[in-house]
């Protein structure tokens, strides 16, 4: 029995029919089919199956784009529009995953370097000590990082009014000077539109205040510990009062100022000094006020600079020059006032206020040793002398105060009283 050995699987014959073989494999199968009748029969059978299946035809329908498809197309066109162009550009940029990863990595490194650079420039002791805020002068920070100020507050009405005032001053000057002084108006507009040179704050600015009322048994120790706690947390005493009458507990009322970031730690330490009677904390967000103040300050400085330049470089009528000088003085006064206000606000934010009331837990004590007899006699004699002197003094004072009035009344009433007295005596005699 001679069996034909086929060099390929029947499935490969099918794949040959379906065009799924490579050119080499197809050549081998084709050569084999020339020689092998059985395989040709298999191929013919498979071909008949395919031909038989072709008998099941589906009548073609004249499809039109339906309303739903048309609507979807319109929606898609609307969605694409402008956004699509951007997406397309980004897709080209990120066509490959590794490219996207490289871009993302590069951006992350850049952001990290930028962040670290910002920290190193704005950092330092002051920033660390005043951790929650950035309270350095706006002009100083602006000069270091002109692009950092991304907080754009609402335009300050003062900024506008300053610009308007400056504009009024300029009316009397030459047209050239007028052109020069139109800049403050532009500056005010820049403030209104959120110019990039505006100062900003890195986080919320909150004035923190806390109240703590304690009762302690060891008042002296608490008083000493209070000093230690303040030194530990770099705080200071703004106000301190102690008092206490004999026979009652002593009290201490103090207003402490501690760095805002040390407030919680200070409270924890202070609570250990005694029993907490009451405690309260509050915070006032002054971020918007601070930023507004900085914007006004910046604008005023710009105005001052422009006026100074004007005085230095330009000439005009004497009256106009004097008016400009007055305006410079006024602007400088406003700047100093705002600067003081800004520092005060920064101080309030950077240093929290802690009101502490410590009361001694007083216990009345029994008088176990009575005073001696001599002491009691001596005390009695002294008290008697004192009461005698007091009595004489009181009489003297009474006479001095009321004597003239008494004499007057006696003089007035003496004769009527004598007359009445005589008549009474006479009637009794009869």
């Amino acid at each position, binding site marked *: 029995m001679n*069996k*034909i*050995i*086929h*060099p*390929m*699987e*029947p*499935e*490969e014959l*099918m*794949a040959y029919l*379906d065009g*799924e073989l490579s050119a080499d494999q197809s050549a081998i199968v084709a050569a084999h089919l020339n020689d092998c009748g*059985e*395989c040709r*029969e*298999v191929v*013919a*059978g*498979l071909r*008949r*199956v*395919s031909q*038989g*299946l*072709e*008998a*099941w*035809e*589906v*009548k*073609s*329908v004249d*499809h039109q*784009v*339906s309303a*739903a*498809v048309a609507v*979807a*197309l319109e*929606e*898609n*066109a609307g*969605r*694409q529009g402008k956004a*699509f162009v951007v*997406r*397309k550009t980004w897709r080209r940029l990120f066509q490959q995953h590794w490219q996207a990863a490289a871009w993302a990595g590069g951006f992350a490194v850049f952001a990290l370097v930028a962040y670290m650079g910002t920290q190193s420039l704005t950092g330092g002791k002051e920033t660390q000590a005043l951790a929650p805020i950035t309270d350095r002068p706006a002009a100083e920070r602006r000069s270091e990082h002109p692009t950092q100020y991304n907080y754009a507050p609402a335009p300050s009405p003062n900024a506008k009014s300053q610009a308007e005032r400056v504009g009024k001053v300029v009316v009397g000057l030459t047209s050239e000077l007028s052109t020069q002084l139109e800049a403050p108006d532009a500056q005010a507009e820049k403030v209104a539109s959120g110019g990039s040179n505006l100062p900003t704050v890195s986080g919320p600015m909150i004035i923190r205040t806390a109240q703590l009322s304690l009762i302690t048994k060891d008042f002296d120790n608490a008083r000493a510990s209070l000093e230690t706690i303040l030194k530990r947390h770099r705080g200071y005493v703004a106000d301190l009062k102690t008092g206490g009458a004999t026979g009652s507990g002593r009290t201490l009322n103090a207003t402490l100022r501690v760095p805002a970031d040390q407030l919680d730690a200070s409270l924890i330490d202070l609570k250990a000094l005694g029993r907490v009677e009451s405690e309260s904390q509050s915070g006032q967000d002054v971020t918007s006020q601070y930023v507004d103040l900085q914007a006004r300050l910046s604008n005023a400085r710009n105005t001052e600079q422009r006026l100074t330049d004007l005085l230095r470089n330009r000439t005009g009528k004497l009256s106009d020059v004097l008016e400009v000088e007055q305006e410079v003085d006024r602007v400088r006064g406003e700047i100093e006032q705002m600067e003081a206000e800004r520092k005060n606000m920064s101080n309030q934010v950077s240093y929290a206020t802690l009101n502490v009331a410590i009361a001694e837990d007083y216990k009345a004590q029994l008088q176990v040793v009575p005073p001696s007899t001599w002491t009691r006699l001596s005390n009695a004699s002294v008290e008697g002398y004192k009461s005698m002197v007091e009595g004489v003094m009181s009489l003297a004072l009474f006479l001095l105060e009321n004597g003239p009035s008494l004499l007057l009344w006696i003089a007035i009433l003496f004769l009527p009283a004598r007359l009445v007295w005589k008549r009474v005596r006479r009637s009794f005699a009869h």
Partner: protein
Amino acid sequence: MISDETLMLEFQGGSRAAFEQLFARYRGPLYGYFRRRLNRDERARSRAEDLTQETFIAVIRAVARYEPRALVRTYFYAIAINLLAAERRSQQRDSPIGKAAPEPSTGDAPDTSMWVREALQKLDESEREILMLREYEQLSYSEISDLLKIPLNTVRSRLFRARIALKDHLEPSARCTDARRKMDDTPSPVKLARVEGEAL
């Protein structure tokens, strides 16, 4: 002739003409796909049309996320397969009894092709789907493999089994079957090598 992928990218770029060309190319094949696989009733025809339109709507809505990694043809049929699966689930919920496996419809078949439908009904469902994708949708083995998420060799073996079974149903006495059985019994060198390879 512009390739489907190019047209798709143009449509992605906002070209409505590109979409209309794609629509013209695929409306017939997609309709045939749905028509052959939906149940045999009067509603199936309009439903096939609806599903064809829904396929294009899905393409439109997802065009922004399209990436030319696979053939557009595969992309379209993948959407069609999902829509058909959803349709079948919906039909099973609506039907009080519900058929476990939907039967292929006549698809406007004349009486002369009735035997084809009956023969296909006798096939195993997975083999029938592969056979229909190959014969009617003209998809390649690799495309079927991608669509159904099964290995390429499985596609080939199931397709072969389906064809042989169909041939048996159509021609029970065909000598082809005997010949194939003889070939299966014959330990060909290639087959031996494959068995050894799999064992390894």
